[in-house]
């Protein structure tokens, strides 16, 4: 690891102040991704600001009947919180589909949003990568790209966002609360992460001096008809090739509301409002789900090794919507896909 200064933030205002004072500083909490990136030489912070002692570890009801999750709530505590298990089982399931118990014990809610792609070339400092070194080129487009994106890519970057939790948060219309020098703001989840475009070095729209303080969930949790299906090279402890979060509200066999978010296929959790609205009013049957899947993948583009992902995503979307409609969500313990 490179040598860095280390300091603790005493409160949120102090954290913002310390960050604003050092352009090379980074916040550290769980450290599960950042420490690894420092070891690899991908991140070279001048200072780490330890935020683990800030009072951001609570989970509270909001005035509108939703939940506010403090940025420092560990992933495991969030997954197993009774309110999450009961009211937001899609989020519970997605968190448990990711990482390992040890990492979930360390990783925080806010940090999960800020983890970086696991593109091999991003990690390999001997190869060009526009995300790591803007303007150097993308090694993945003509390289080994089995894990890479099929939606929303650019000629500069085809990396994917690695999080499972964020796929569920996108489907649930969560909001991100952040505090910076200009005060607090609330960011819709869909506007938090970015597509690569010609600036793939920026994963999110968070400003340099801002710190995530909480995630807010709206009251609606889709606890009856939901499923999180993650397809990967081994059954546990691996990043997604394709992941699908589906949440439905069904009335008399017709879909009243549909939420569909994909992981492992784009630079951000992929929501498609057009495909969702096409499902509204449609019967909750396979034919509707096939149409929705075709719609989501209408502009999908692959790069050789990841050609299989388009058909895999199509089938995974249909299967996950079917599981949601049937009220038989994918188990993250028993891995058989039914």
């Amino acid at each position, binding site marked *: *690891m*490179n*040598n*860095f*200064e*280390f300091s603790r933030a005493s409160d949120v205002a102090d954290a913002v102040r310390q960050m604003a004072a050092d352009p090379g500083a980074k916040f*550290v909490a769980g*450290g*599960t991704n950042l*420490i*690894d990136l*420092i*070891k690899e030489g991908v991140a070279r912070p001048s200072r*780490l600001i*330890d935020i*683990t002692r800030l009072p951001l570890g609570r989970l509270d009801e909001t005035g509108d009947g939703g939940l506010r999750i403090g940025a420092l709530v560990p992933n495991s505590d969030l997954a*197993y919180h009774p309110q999450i298990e009961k009211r937001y089982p899609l989020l519970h399931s997605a968190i448990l589909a990711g*990482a*390992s*118990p*040890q*990492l979930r*014990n*360390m990783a925080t809610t806010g940090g999960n949003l800020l983890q970086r792609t696991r593109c091999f070339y991003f990690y390999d400092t001997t190869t060009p990568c526009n995300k790591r070194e803007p303007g150097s080129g993308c090694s993945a487009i003509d390289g080994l790209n089995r894990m890479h994106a099929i939606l929303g890519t650019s000629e500069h970057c085809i990396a994917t966002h690695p999080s499972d939790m964020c796929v569920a948060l996108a489907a649930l219309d969560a909001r991100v609360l952040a505090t910076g020098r200009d005060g607090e703001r609330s960011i819709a989840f869909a506007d938090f992460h970015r597509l690569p475009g010609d600036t793939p070095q920026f994963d999110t729209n968070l400003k340099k001096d801002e710190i995530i303080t909480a995630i807010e969930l709206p009251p609606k949790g889709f606890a009856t008809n939901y499923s999180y299906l993650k397809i990967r090279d081994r059954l*546990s*402890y691996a990043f997604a090739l394709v992941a699908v979060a589906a949440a439905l509200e069904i009335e008399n066999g017709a879909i009243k509301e549909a939420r569909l978010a994909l992981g492992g296929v784009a630079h951000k959790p992929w929501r498609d409002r057009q495909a969702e609205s096409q499902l509204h009013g449609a019967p909750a049957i396979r034919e509707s789900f096939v149409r929705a899947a075709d719609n989501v993948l209408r502009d999908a583009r692959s790069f050789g090794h990841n050609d299989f992902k388009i058909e895999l995503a199509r089938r995974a979307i249909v299967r996950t919507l079917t599981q949601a409609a049937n009220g038989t969500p994918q188990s*993250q*313990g*028993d*891995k058989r896909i039914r």
Partner: protein
Amino acid sequence: MMVTLHVNGVANKLTLAPWTTLLDTLRIHLGLTGTKKGCDHGQCGACTVLVDGRRINSCLTLAVMKDGAQITTIEGLAKDGALHPIQRAFIDHDAFQCGYCTPGQICSAVGLIAEGRAHTADEVRELMSGNICRCGAYPNILAAIEQVISQKSAAPPRDGGP
């Protein structure tokens, strides 16, 4: 930086560079080499220890961030010369071959049992997936952990240690 780490019940005052991982602190500064460095990237689980009772990867943890914490390593599990039930079960079931992953497997299993969320073989497998065994001793590791879980559910709860 000055930090105090309570390791296996002993307070250690240490002066550490901030980039020192908890894993290197245990092995190099405290001579507790039972905790193993496998991948050093949070992918294998060989470095698993318990911090304030929770299992974590010590290779991705900065020691200076654990100032004041209670840390339990493989060296701290046996009490008064008696092996921890998980250690005993690993011997009973021959749950290792080369042994390199074993301290991490055992600390992880102690954490798993404290969490109380693994009730079936599938759940034990899934919730032990953070510990890789390249010898492939998984069936015996599973049997060892299942034995301790079934003893726990059969016997009334006991006081004391993890």
